[in-house]
């Protein structure tokens, strides 16, 4: 149920919205205990999303505790003082709703989508676990097993995922906070104690380290009253220190080849250290990504999938694989993952990608081409805001990362304003071979079956 890589496979999904025809109404304020609240009313369909975001993710983990943020996220579904184990799921589902939680590099989110008559129910559940989570040995043991099983299912047993989650970060980053495995090792998961869970809860799961976003069929005064009722008396905590994510100087381009017994088709990941979030270069690279990979007329598709017939499938994003442009925080890469025709080598694919980038570096993009890409981006962004959950997620990201949920209505303008010269300059500055990190994933013959099991708990 809970997922680690929620954003992993969305292509160019980020950057909500804009002046052209859309104005998401926003009311935001802060409770006395520091909880940030963002409300957005839309009475078209009787559905409401309650979205709780905490300002802590896998990059805050300590050595010896890889995977802990995700393990903790599982603990949030193990019950609280007034909603014991099972009640959260049962209550939401028996009212026709859906719920989930997911752990990301820099935040953790929890949401309920329900028929709108159940707004109070969702607030009751979210506030109860923020106030009084049930932390005990039995729950921890149970969720260690669930997480280990999730690792087996989603990573150890799936082609490419081990390379993506365990190997790729070690090439892209040198700061341990970013380079360690976010799903964690079996040893570290096993070593986690109830004391670790309690400390993490107290440190990070306080109202002043969180934001609550409600989107959908609500009346603002009623919603405010309910938020006050359920959350106002949860005590704040000293704001936690955030991890130092700075990469040490002396970056070097690197290439590694990884064998994958589960893969049948070769793949290659190409990445480059990216710019700061919301800097001018960030918007320029966002448009570079759209030119290369968004829509059927994208250059990777037209020139490599169709022209050279070398690439079969691809995905790319600012922040790939664990983040997207919306939840991109520094430092993050711009990266692309390509499955390719085995008649080509990984080196050839990398060269072909670099040639596409070289076209953007050598001359400004044609005005007509850029206009088409802008229209495509505008449409993708608007489409991405149709569900109350998607709007809530975007509002939460802007609140947490930028302190300004209103950006949902203006960010697209920044992307639309990027000029051909800026695109050319950003491609030249960031996407060069001497700043390139490459991971080739090569299908290997199936290992003898006893070697495929992972150490630790068999």
């Amino acid at each position, binding site marked *: 149920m809970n997922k680690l890589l929620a954003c992993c496979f969305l292509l160019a999904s980020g950057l909500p919205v804009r002046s052209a025809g859309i104005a998401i109404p926003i009311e935001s304020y802060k409770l006395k205990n520091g909880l940030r609240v963002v409300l957005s009313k839309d009475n078209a369909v009787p559905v409401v999303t309650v979205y709780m975001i905490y300002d802590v993710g896998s990059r805050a983990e300590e050595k010896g505790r890889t995977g802990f943020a995700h393990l903790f996220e599982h603990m949030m579904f193990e019950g609280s003082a007034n909603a014991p184990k099972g009640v959260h799921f049962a209550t939401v589902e028996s009212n026709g709703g859906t719920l989930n939680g997911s752990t990301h590099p820099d935040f953790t989110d929890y949401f309920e989508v329900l028929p709108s008559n159940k707004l109070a129910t969702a607030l009751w559940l979210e506030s109860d676990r923020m106030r009084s989570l049930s932390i005990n040995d039995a729950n921890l043991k149970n969720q260690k097993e669930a997480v280990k099983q999730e690792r087996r*299912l*989603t990573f*150890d047993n799936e082609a490419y995922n081990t390379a993506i989650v365990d190997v790729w970060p070690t090439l892209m980053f040198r700061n341990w906070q970013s380079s360690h495995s976010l799903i964690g090792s079996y040893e570290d998961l096993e070593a986690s104690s109830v004391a670790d869970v309690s400390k993490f809860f107290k440190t990070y799961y306080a109202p002043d380290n969180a934001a609550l976003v409600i989107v959908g069929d609500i009346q603002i005064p009623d919603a405010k009253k309910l938020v006050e009722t359920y959350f106002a*008396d949860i005590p704040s905590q000293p704001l936690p220190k955030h991890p130092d994510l700075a990469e040490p100087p002396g970056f070097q381009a690197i290439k590694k080849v990884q064998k994958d017994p589960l893969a049948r088709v070769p793949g290659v990941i190409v990445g480059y250290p990216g710019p700061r979030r919301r800097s001018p270069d960030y918007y320029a690279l966002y448009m570079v990504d759209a030119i290369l990979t968004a829509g059927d007329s994208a250059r990777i598709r037209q020139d490599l999938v169709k022209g050279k017939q070398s690439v079969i499938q691809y995905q790319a994003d600012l922040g790939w694989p664990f983040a997207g442009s919306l939840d991109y925080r520094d430092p993050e890469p711009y990266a692309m993952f390509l499955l390719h*025709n085995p008649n080509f080598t990984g080196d050839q694919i990398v060269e072909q990608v670099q040639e596409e980038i070289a076209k953007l570096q050598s001359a400004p993009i044609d005005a007509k081409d850029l206009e088409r890409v802008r229209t495509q981006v505008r*449409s993708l962004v608007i489409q991405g805001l149709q569900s109350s959950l998607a709007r809530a997620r975007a509002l939460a990201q802007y609140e947490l990362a930028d302190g300004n949920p209103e950006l949902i209505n203006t960010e697209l303008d920044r992307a639309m304003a990027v000029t051909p010269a800026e695109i050319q300059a950003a491609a030249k500055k960031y996407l060069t071979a001497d700043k390139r990190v490459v991971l080739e994933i090569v299908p290997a013959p199936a290992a003898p079956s006893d070697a*495929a099991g992972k150490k630790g708990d068999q």
Partner: protein
Amino acid sequence: MPPRLFALCALAAAGLAAQTVDRTKAPETPAIPDYKLAPVYDTKLPNGLGVVLVEDSRFPLVTARLNFQAGSKFDPKDAPGLAEAVATLLTEGTKTRTARQLSEQTDAIGGSLAGAAGADALTVSGNALSENLARLLELVADVAINATFPQDEVDLYKQNRIQNLLAERAEPSFLAGEKFAEVVYGSSPYAHIAPTEEAIRKLDRTALNGFRDTWLAPNNASLLLIGRLPARADLMKTIAQQFGSWQQKQVPAAPKVEPPAPRRQIVLVDRPGSVQADIHVGRLAPTRVSAEFFPLMVGNNILGGGANSRMFKNIREKEGFAYDAHSEYNTQRDASTFAAVTEVRNEVVEPAMKAVLAELDQMASTQVPAAELTNIKNYMAGGYLLRLETQNGLANQLNNMNTLGLPKNYLETYTAHVRSVEPDQVLAAAKKYMAPGQAAVVVVGDASKIGDALKKFGDVTIEKAK
């Protein structure tokens, strides 16, 4: 943390008195709100093309579906994957547009355009910014009527589809779904969910043209438009301009689906090195127009429809055997399958199998308690609302109704149908379709690790993974 830019409303909020509240139980809430579907305008062009229009003006977007009764069920026996190939290649070139022009013109309207084939239907899906609706319709009509399947695009499709098929076959869940369909549907047209490599290699323009000319006719199709639409008369005029001259033709009867009688069999698809076993236990089940549909769908959700279901609570949460434990009732126009599905680690295959069979037995032998039934009904009724939030969500629902031949009032009466299901109806449906006596068992995993455990449940046929 970046500095916060505002705290404008903090004072106002602080002024609201917190109400005292009893936190020990879930709050009292009002009744589930009513939702009425936007009016659906339903008509036909003189050439037989069905037209369905639904206004949704929340966002400046339009969504289109052009649905043909021409899914993989219509694949010739020796050409599995033909419908899918036709669907994919429709957008790769027409009499007046190259593939690249189609892509560029689609992106230029902020749109997407793609064909896909399911078991029953082939659907062309498109969307665009609403200001570009006329151009979207022009593109949809062009690919549906004038596709030419250029040789170089066919060659590329074949090459890439073979690679994709290899990637799909690397997934245990794909292998399990494929084998389960084969086992349940026997030699009937629903038995294949994917092409074979051999069939892809043999694919040519003659076969593609033949399929297109046989099945893609206006009188075998329905056009659905949802979004911020222009005035009705103007829109109908645009539709007639694009689709009106499309010639009606005689369409052959759809192939018959006559699956074999269900019987107990255990098939193990060997996947050396697998650390998991993917288990399907199930059988043939009734279609959506059957009176047994709603009782069995309610039963399916009780057994394995989400985190409140028995399989999730017992097999995942209580026993910890699996991360995923659920059940599926996959309905198609002429036949359906029901299956309990779980993916477990090798060491617990035997107890997990026992647990799955016990859950199925329980469903088939004991009436569902009233509270559990009410919960599941609310789950289904609320889930229905949630699916209608986006244009794609609504379009998929309406398109699916067309694919499956459901009555026009299906969506509007869905909730009432769910609420009317009685416990004895669930029991009767479960006795017939969930009792494991005649259920087929399909497992994908490492035979050297799990073969012995499976043999405790009967004779096991071991097959190699394709």
